[in-house]
């Protein structure tokens, strides 16, 4: 991902979007973790929490999530309320059903395509699993090419 960010995202060629696909059957705390990242997003620290939880995937229990939030300087009570109320449960469920509809059942999975009006993306390519950079590069370049004309 860092290579893609540098070559395509930072140069304005590609918009990188993250969606949640917690695999609850395998990872019991994955859904909570996804909620926690969105709750951190309420306080402007979505990516910070995202990165932090990716780096510390071992012990994602609620107490740790609150510690991570505090570690990022988030207001703990607001964060806790967001988790307790389950403010993002519906949004995450929507992400999950969208993934299933597209035929995605495992993580990570990537869809690549063209941005469309109305906040949509017309995805035309799918990459499943953590593939080498070249796989992403090939897919992105093949879609960039016709636009150069």
């Amino acid at each position, binding site marked *: *991902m860092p290579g893609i*960010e540098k070559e*395509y*995202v*930072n140069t*304005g*060629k*590609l*918009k*990188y*979007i*993250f*969606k*949640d*696909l*917690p*695999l609850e059957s395998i*990872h019991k*705390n*994955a859904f909570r*973790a*996804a909620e926690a*990242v969105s709750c951190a997003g309420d306080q402007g620290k*979505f*990516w910070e929490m*995202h990165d932090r*939880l*990716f780096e510390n*995937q071992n012990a*994602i229990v609620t107490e740790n999530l609150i510690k991570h939030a505090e570690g990022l300087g988030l207001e703990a009570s607001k964060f806790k309320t967001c988790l307790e109320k389950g403010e993002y449960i519906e949004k995450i469920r929507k*992400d999950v059903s*969208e*993934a299933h*509809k*597209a*035929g*995605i059942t495992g*993580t*990570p*999975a*990537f*869809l*690549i*395509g*063209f*941005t*469309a009006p*109305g*906040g*949509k*993306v*017309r*995805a*035309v390519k*799918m990459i*499943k699993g953590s593939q080498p950079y070249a796989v*992403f590069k090939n897919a*992105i370049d093949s879609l*960039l090419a016709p*636009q150069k004309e």
Partner: protein
Amino acid sequence: MKKILMPAGLILYILLTVQPGFSHTTDEIKVIKDDIKSLREGQKAIQKELQELRDLLKSKQAARPAEFKEAIINIEGAHFKGDKNAKLAIIEFSDYQ
């Protein structure tokens, strides 16, 4: 004397005519053997090609993502990085464990 010579002549005749016949069939056998050999080789080549096709098919099936055609994904309200008006988009679906 004549009576003894008759069978002898017959035997000689048979020997003379059958002998070339014998060498003829061994030649034929050799040709057939050669034919079989080249047929076997041909079959081997076909089998090899068949195996290669099978392998190719298998690798094609392994690369299933190619079957994906198109999906419309709603990204409204989703967190993103980069230019919001970029023509291309990559959507990552992931979890934290």
